[in-house]
């Protein structure tokens, strides 16, 4: 049964197509884009920091304040950029390993003021898979199958344990609509602090005026997270991932919290894009330039 589970997840029997290769390179580019986005935006912010309030990750074992001065955060972002390019163009097998280590350092320096941000975790988790996949497998098509299977597994797992965290911390009453009102009030203060104004959108007005709608919204989110493991199955993947995308859009509308890199990963992992690319290339065969087979 376990063997069958892994067989379904990694699908090594699948004959790789041009669409698979193009899709994977776009997926890889998306991960690199968000990696560079995070590493540079954190790199420019880190010099503003003057004290460590909450050490995270490796910062629990070393004084991370050395990253605040001498433009070391910018140097680190540069190293991450070069390593990403070397890894993407297959010039250095350990490129993604250096990227994930560099990004960890950048993260713990950036979030040393007390905030524990989760906006970059999905990208980080996928990067771990890319680093391991490239080192563990020599053939390109095996690397690609491993990285995608790994991503379905750990992204689905992440949403599942997020649902479990809610059950453990609050229990079955977590979807009480009043809890959503509390978080909305918290976010209202945050937006007031950020912009100097208080503005509520149409969706926030609806949710704040109906306990039932607020409760249903939370119940939908919790069920979606608890069923995150359905991403492991190809048949259910588009449906559960669509639910998770809707959940993120809901969080954006109601709480004004945006997770663009998580959303991008979900959109990539949700749908059979490779098959769509194959359909497209077959339909326009001869019109489009040929893509060399990469194995």
């Amino acid at each position: 049964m376990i063997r069958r589970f892994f067989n379904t997840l990694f699908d090594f029997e699948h004959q790789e197509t041009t669409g698979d290769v193009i899709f994977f390179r776009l997926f890889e580019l998306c991960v690199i884009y968000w990696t560079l986005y995070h590493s540079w935006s954190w790199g420019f912010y880190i010099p503003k920091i003057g004290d460590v309030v909450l050490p995270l990750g490796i910062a629990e074992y070393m004084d991370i304040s050395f990253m605040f001065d001498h433009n070391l955060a910018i140097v680190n972002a540069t190293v991450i950029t070069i390593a990403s390019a070397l890894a993407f163009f297959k010039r250095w097998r350990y490129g993604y390993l250096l990227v994930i280590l560099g990004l960890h350092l950048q993260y713990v320096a950036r979030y040393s003021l007390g905030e524990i941000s989760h906006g970059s975790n999905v990208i980080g988790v996928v990067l771990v898979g890319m680093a391991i996949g490239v080192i563990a497998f020599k053939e390109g098509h095996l690397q690609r199958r491993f990285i995608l299977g790994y991503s379905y597994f750990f992204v689905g797992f992440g949403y599942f344990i997020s649902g479990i965290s809610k059950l453990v911390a609050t229990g079955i009453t977590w979807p009480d609509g009043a809890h959503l009102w509390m978080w909305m009030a918290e976010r209202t203060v945050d937006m007031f602090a950020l912009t100097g104004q208080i503005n509520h959108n149409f969706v926030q007005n609806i949710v704040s005026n109906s306990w039932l709608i607020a409760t249903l919204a939370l119940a939908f989110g919790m069920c979606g997270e608890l069923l995150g493991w359905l991403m492991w199955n190809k048949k259910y993947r588009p449906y559960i991932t669509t639910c998770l995308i809707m959940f993120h859009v809901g969080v954006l509308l109601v709480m004004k919290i945006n997770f663009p890199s998580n959303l991008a990963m979900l959109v990539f992992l949700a749908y059979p894009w490779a098959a769509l690319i194959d359909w497209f290339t077959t339909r326009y065969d001869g019109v489009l330039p040929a893509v060399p087979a990469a194995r």
Partner: protein
Amino acid sequence: MAEIPTLLRKVQRLIVAILLVYVALVSTHLGEFWPFSIYPMFSRGGHPWVRSLVRDVTHTPDSLLWRAQSEDTLPGDPFALGPEGISGNDLSNFVSKSKEWDRERIDGMRKLFGESLQSRSLMIYYVEGRLDQDRHISVKYRPFILMLPDSTALDKDLAERHRDMLP
């Protein structure tokens, strides 16, 4: 290419090993070791929260500075963090997770504001949200840290009360 059963054994070992590292790291680091996490955000429903808000009080009389307020009666002018390139979450966490306000901590806080403090007086409000039995939400704004261009004043009673609340 290796045989499918060999490949499956290899990925099985890899996934189990990564999963074990994941569980070991999050269980020994309070649920967080980036990029691994138990994603505890918004897991405690109905729990009181503490955030922060900044007002420009350069032209506010001293008599109005240290009074608790509601959002409609806050003195001074809005000081929006966004255009100043300051993260609101950083400021709120700085306020809510600091146990001791020593010189280093206060300097760290002032560094976040950079040049904004050169010609202004800013008040950081300690904003507390609570859910009562009737599902009513109360939000209180308490003046906490006054940052003048050359000095800083802190409500020590509030800092002490907050420290007692921290785990």
